[in-house]
């Protein structure tokens, strides 16, 4: 209001808000530190008996590495560790914005059938040896998965052109796609040989073992393009959580916002899923953890969702190697096992109830 003097009460409110903003920034900073530590621990885990400090030293200054260290850290483990970070962040961001635009706490890239479509695409390559884009050779499975995931979101997009962009309709169509793809997938599985079936199931369980510097580069590039866009729409996305009416009254073109964000989320999820397989849970729980910690002001929520996703997947990568020495378990099965106890603790300890 247009008053000249600022009352003491108003000052108190501002001070409280400032404290909370600082706290939020501190938490994001802390999560970044924790993530950096996780990455080093991740690289450290596994046979070779490297010390934490030595690993950190080699990462910061590659010139001191012995030949063996160079191979283990720089060529084998660092791409895997960074892949875990990138994919985790991508899934975290995708889940966060999916939940925001669909106004649904259960939404994540998988709710809309993206991962089922990706699995079906992968199955086409594994079982029938059929590639959507010819002559991609060894990348056939990845390319198929990506094309099918993107195709699904394009279908969704066409549907929204037809019937308008209501969250309910989008979720229902997503679920229809999910069941269709699962049914088609079952057909392929039924006709597959034992070897193909094993390969297919391993693909679906998700694995970071296929990581390479090139893939890490692609993931990082996608994040670098899409994350700033989402961040720049922070206020609009926050406003959307107040309901469509409110957001529209602030001058936000809600349909356009939903569609562009859906596009961004699709690319994030499709790239992540096609590189490491279907990893559920991260996209769902990462954002929920972030929400419980900092609330839904997107300026804190979005970065922390990305960081939570990355932390979960990084932790998973460590656990997958540490459970049985010498064996690397598929990450898909570990994410839920290590994430869920933590998640349930958070829900039980949470005083405030949102989404009710």
């Amino acid at each position: 209001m247009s008053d000249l003097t600022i009352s003491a009460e108003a000052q108190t409110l501002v001070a409280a808000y400032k404290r909370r903003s600082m706290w939020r920034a501190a938490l994001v900073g802390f999560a970044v530190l924790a993530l950096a530590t996780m990455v080093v621990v991740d690289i450290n885990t596994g046979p070779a008996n490297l010390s934490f400090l030595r690993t950190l030293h080699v990462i910061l200054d590659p010139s001191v590495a012995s030949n063996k260290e160079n191979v283990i850290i720089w060529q084998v483990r660092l791409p895997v560790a960074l892949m875990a970070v990138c994919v985790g962040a991508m899934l975290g961001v995708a889940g966060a914005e999916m939940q925001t635009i669909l106004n649904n706490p259960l939404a994540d890239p998988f709710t809309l059938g993206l991962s089922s479509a990706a699995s079906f695409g992968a199955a086409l390559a594994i079982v029938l040896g059929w590639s959507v884009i010819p002559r991609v050779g060894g990348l056939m499975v990845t390319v198929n998965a990506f094309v099918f995931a993107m195709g699904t979101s394009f279908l969704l997009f066409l549907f929204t052109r037809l019937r308008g962009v209501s969250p309910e309709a989008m979720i229902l169509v997503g679920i229809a796609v999910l069941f269709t793809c699962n049914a088609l997938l079952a057909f392929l599985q039924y006709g597959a040989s034992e070897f193909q079936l094993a390969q297919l199931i391993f693909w679906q369980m998700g694995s970071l073992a296929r990581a390479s510097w090139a893939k890490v580069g692609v993931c990082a590039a996608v994040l670098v393009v899409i994350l700033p866009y989402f961040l720049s729409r922070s206020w609009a996305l926050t406003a959307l959580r107040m309901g469509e009416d409110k957001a529209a009254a602030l001058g936000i073109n809600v349909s356009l916002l939903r569609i562009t964000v859906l596009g961004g989320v699709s690319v994030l999820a499709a790239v992540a899923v096609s590189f490491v397989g279907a990893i559920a849970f991260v996209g769902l729980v990462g954002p929920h953890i972030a929400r419980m910690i900092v609330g839904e002001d997107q300026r804190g929520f979005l970065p922390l969702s990305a960081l939570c996703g990355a932390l979960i997947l990084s932790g998973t990568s460590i656990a997958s190697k540490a459970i049985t020495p010498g064996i690397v378990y598929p990450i898909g099965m570990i994410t839920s096992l290590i994430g869920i106890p933590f998640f349930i603790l958070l829900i039980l300890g949470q005083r405030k109830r949102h989404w009710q």
Partner: protein
Amino acid sequence: MTELTASGLAFSYGKRRVLRDVGFDAIAPGTLTALIGPNASGKSTLFRLIAGLHRTESGAVHLGETDLATLSSRERLKRVCFMPQFFTANAALTVFDVVMMAHKQLRGWRVSEADMLAVGQALDHAGIGHLSEAFVSELSGGQSQMVSVVQALVRNSDVYLFDEPTSALDLRHQLQVLSQIKTAMAARGTIGIVALHDLNLAARFADHLVLLGQGRVLAQGTPGDVLRSPAISETYGVDIEITSGPRKDLLVHAYAS
């Protein structure tokens, strides 16, 4: 003087015609107008047409010399602030957060000291400073309605449209919110329109009444004129008697006919 005028507005939802040829006389800045009318008479729809959230089929809304249709929808919603009727949010956002969001209106990413002071001041003024750090998902219906009003008042617009800002409030807060709105409009020299169901509140606070019914404006003018016009009993389908209250205010009595 930037007065708000409308003429010939029409709108239908599909085949259902809601408004036909709606217009009102110029509304002067610094005044509060109450938009009254029975349920489903098109009050919210009229607000949406003025704000440009729905496109009118004919006619135009002018603010001063400007035809609002010539503005971009972003620009139009900056000049016309519309507070929708319902607001239920289950978001993990605090009251301060959501008022800040309304205040920022998508401008820039950073929150400056001045932004924070403006929001703190607005909350304090509205008497809901104690709710500042509460989550919107925990508010009662009345509390969220008051937050909604602050979200509107914190913005700097030329026209403020409030869709039933008092429907969930107790007596004291009804009076408090309406006098806040009225004072703010007078102090800022802006145009305020409030959709109200309570004719007594309308008579008490509004400088002007506009009666909407059957998709048209059936009467407009000072509260005394409109409330005494035969149109009002016909529109609401009740007998209405007007008397003077102990403080020379108009009292509206309705009897089922």
